[in-house]
C-alpha cells in the first residue's frame, strides 16, 4: 500500500513538472539577455557568457567582444552595456586585461523595457474597466433574473428558461459576425460599449445563482412576507446575504472570462487606444517577434494578476466544481 502511494506521488510530480515547465521556462527566459538567447542559451539558467574587460583600479567588469588581435600583445574590442548595445567600439586594450567569464545574471530591465515598448499601462486600464463593469453587470442582471426563475411563478417561465439554455449553447464564433454588423449599426464599434454592453448578462451565471436561490428554504420567504417584506426586500435582505459565496464564485468566473476574452475585442476594436490587454499583447507579439526575452517578460506580467487572483480564491473555485453539479 505504501509503495503504491510513492508511485502515485512520483507520477503526479512528473506530470506536475510537465504542467509547470512552460511557466518556469517563461520566467527564466524573461530575465535572460537577448544576446545569450540568440547565441543558443535556451535552457533554464539565465547565464551570461562573455569576454570582460578589467580596468585597473575598478571593481566592475565591462562586457566586451574581441574583434581581432592587435600588434604588441593587445586586442581590438567592442564594449557593450548590459543589454548588449555597443557603447564603445574599436578599442585597443592589452590582452591581459580581457578575461572570459560565465556567470548567472538576471536582466530584470527586460520587464521595464517590455512595459515601455507598447502602452501596457493603458491596456491594463482598459481591461480593468471592461472586466469590472462586466462583472458588476453580470451579477446585477444575474441576481435579478435568477431570483425570478427560482422563486416566482409567471406565464412563459419555461419558454424563457429554454430560450436562455439554448442561447447558452450557441458558441461565440457563430454570432460574432452578425454582432459585428449589429454593433456597427449601433455605432458602437471601437467604443467601450462594444466590449461591455453585450456582456452585461451571463447565462451561466444566471443558472449558477438560480440553483442556489432555489435551495433556500421557503419558510424564510413566508416569514418575510408575513412581516411585510416586499419582493425586492426579500431579495435584498434574505437572498443576497445568504448567497455571498456563490456570488463570489460567479464573480470570479465572470472576471476570468472577461479578462481572458480575445476574439471579441480583436474583432470589435480597431483603435490602439482601446486595446485590451490580450489584444495589445497579441499585437506586441507580432511586432517584437524576435525579442524573445521581452515577449516572455510581457507574458509574465500579463499572466500574473489572474494567477494571483486564482491562488487567493482557489478554495472558492475548487469548491464550486464539487457543489455546483457540473455533470451531464
Amino acid at each position, binding site marked *: 500500500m505504501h509503495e503504491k502511494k510513492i508511485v502515485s506521488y512520483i507520477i503526479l510530480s512528473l506530470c506536475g513538472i510537465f504542467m509547470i515547465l512552460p511557466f518556469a521556462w517563461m520566467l527564466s527566459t524573461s530575465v535572460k539577455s537577448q544576446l545569450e538567447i540568440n547565441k543558443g542559451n535556451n535552457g533554464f539558467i539565465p547565464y551570461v557568457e562573455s569576454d570582460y574587460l578589467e580596468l585597473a583600479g575598478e571593481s566592475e567588469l565591462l562586457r566586451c567582444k574581441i574583434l581581432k588581435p592587435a600588434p604588441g600583445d593587445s586586442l581590438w574590442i567592442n564594449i557593450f552595456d548590459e543589454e548588449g548595445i555597443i557603447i564603445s567600439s574599436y578599442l585597443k586594450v592589452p590582452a591581459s586585461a580581457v578575461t572570459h567569464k560565465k556567470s548567472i545574471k538576471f536582466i530584470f530591465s527586460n520587464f521595464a523595457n517590455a512595459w515601455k515598448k507598447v502602452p501596457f499601462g493603458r491596456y491594463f486600464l482598459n481591461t480593468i474597466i471592461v472586466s469590472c463593469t462586466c462583472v458588476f453587470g453580470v451579477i446585477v442582471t444575474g441576481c435579478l433574473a435568477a431570483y425570478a426563475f427560482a422563486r416566482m411563478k409567471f406565464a412563459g417561465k419555461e419558454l424563457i428558461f429554454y430560450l436562455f439554455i439554448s*442561447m447558452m449553447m450557441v458558441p461565440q464564433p457563430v454570432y460574432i459576425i452578425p454582432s459585428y454588423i449589429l454593433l456597427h449599426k449601433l455605432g458602437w464599434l471601437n467604443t467601450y460599449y462594444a466590449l461591455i454592453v453585450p456582456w452585461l*448578462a451571463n447565462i451561466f451565471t444566471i443558472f449558477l445563482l438560480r440553483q442556489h436561490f432555489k435551495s433556500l428554504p421557503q419558510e424564510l420567504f413566508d416569514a418575510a412576507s408575513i412581516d411585510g417584506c416586499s419582493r425586492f426586500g426579500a431579495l435584498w435582505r434574505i437572498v443576497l446575504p445568504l448567497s455571498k459565496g456563490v456570488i463570489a464564485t460567479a464573480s470570479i468566473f465572470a472576471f476570468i472570462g472577461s479578462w481572458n476574452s*480575445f476574439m471579441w475585442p480583436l474583432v470589435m476594436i480597431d483603435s490602439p487606444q482601446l486595446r485590451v490587454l490580450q489584444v495589445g499583447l497579441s499585437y506586441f507579439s507580432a511586432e517584437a517577434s524576435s525579442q524573445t526575452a521581452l515577449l516572455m517578460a510581457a507574458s509574465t506580467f500579463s*499572466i500574473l494578476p489572474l494567477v494571483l487572483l486564482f491562488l487567493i480564491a482557489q478554495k472558492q473555485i475548487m469548491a464550486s466544481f464539487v457543489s455546483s453539479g457540473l455533470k451531464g
Partner: protein
Amino acid sequence: MVKKKIDFGPYLYLLPALLIVVVFRLVPIVLSFLVSFFEWTINGAGDFIGFNNYTKLLSDPGFWQSMLNTFYLVIFVVPLSLILSLVFANFLNGITRLRAFFRTVYYIPTVTSMVAVSIVWKIIFNQQTGLMNYLLGLIGIDPLGWLAESRGIFQLMFGDGVPAWAGGPSLALFSIIILTIWKGLGYNTIIYLAGLQNIPETYYEAASIDGASKFTRFYKITLPLVSPTTFYVLMMTTITTFQVFSQIYLMTGPPVGGPLGTTKVIVYYLFEQGFGESQNLSYASAIALVVFFIILGLTLFQRKLEKKVHY
C-alpha cells in the same frame, strides 16, 4: 367573473438579462441566417443570393482543408485529454497529502490567458531559440521544424513513403494540439476528481474483499460510475476544441502564417474570410452556420448516447 390581474413583477426582474440575451444573442443568431443568404457588406444587405454561399463552400478547398484540420485537432485533443485527465484524477484521488497542491499546479494553465500561453509556447517551439529543440538536443535528437513544419506527423515518423492523405496532422498542427491538451487538462482533471469523489468507498472495499484486482476495480467500478462526468467532459472538450481560435491566430497567424495552411481550423478560416482582406461577411456567416449545425449535431448525438449508456 373577476379577471385576475397579471403580475408584471417577475418580468421586471427578468427584463435586464432578457434584453441583453435577446438583443445580443437571439437577434444576431437570426441575423446570421439572413446574412448568409444575402450579399452583405458592413453597410447593410445587398442582393438575395440564396444558397450560393453554401454551394461555394462545398467546392472551396480552403474550407475543406480547415474542416480536415479541425477534425485532426478534435480527434487528437479530445481522447488524449480525456484519458490523461482521468488518469491524473485517479492518482489525485488516491492521495490525501499534497492533493490540494497538485490540484492547484494542474489548474494554473486553465486560468492563464490563451494569448499569453500561446506566445510562450510559440517560443518554446521556435526552431532556433526554443525549449523543445534544446531538450531534443540534450538527448541527441536533431532539431525539428515544429510550427514551421507542414509535413504530417506520420510522414515524419514513418518516412516519406506514407502517402500525403495518410500523413496525419502537420507537425505544426500537432504542436498546437500539444498546447491545447496542456491548457485544458487541469479543468478536465478537476471535473473528473469531483466525479470520482462521488463514488462511495464501500464499492471498492466490497470489490477488494471479493478479490478484484486494482485494474478490475477501475474497469468495473470507476469507469461505469464516472460515466456521467465522462459525457460532460467529452461534450465540453469536443465543443471547445471545435472553436479553437486564439492559439492558431497567435502561433501561426499574421503576419507570417502557418505552413501551407495546415493549421487553419474552421473558426480561424471564418475569421479570415470575415475580417481578413476579403471582408466577406456573408460567406463567413455561412461558415459560422456550418459550425453551428455541427456543434448542434454533436450535442444532440452525445445527449442521445448519454441516455443509452447512463448508469
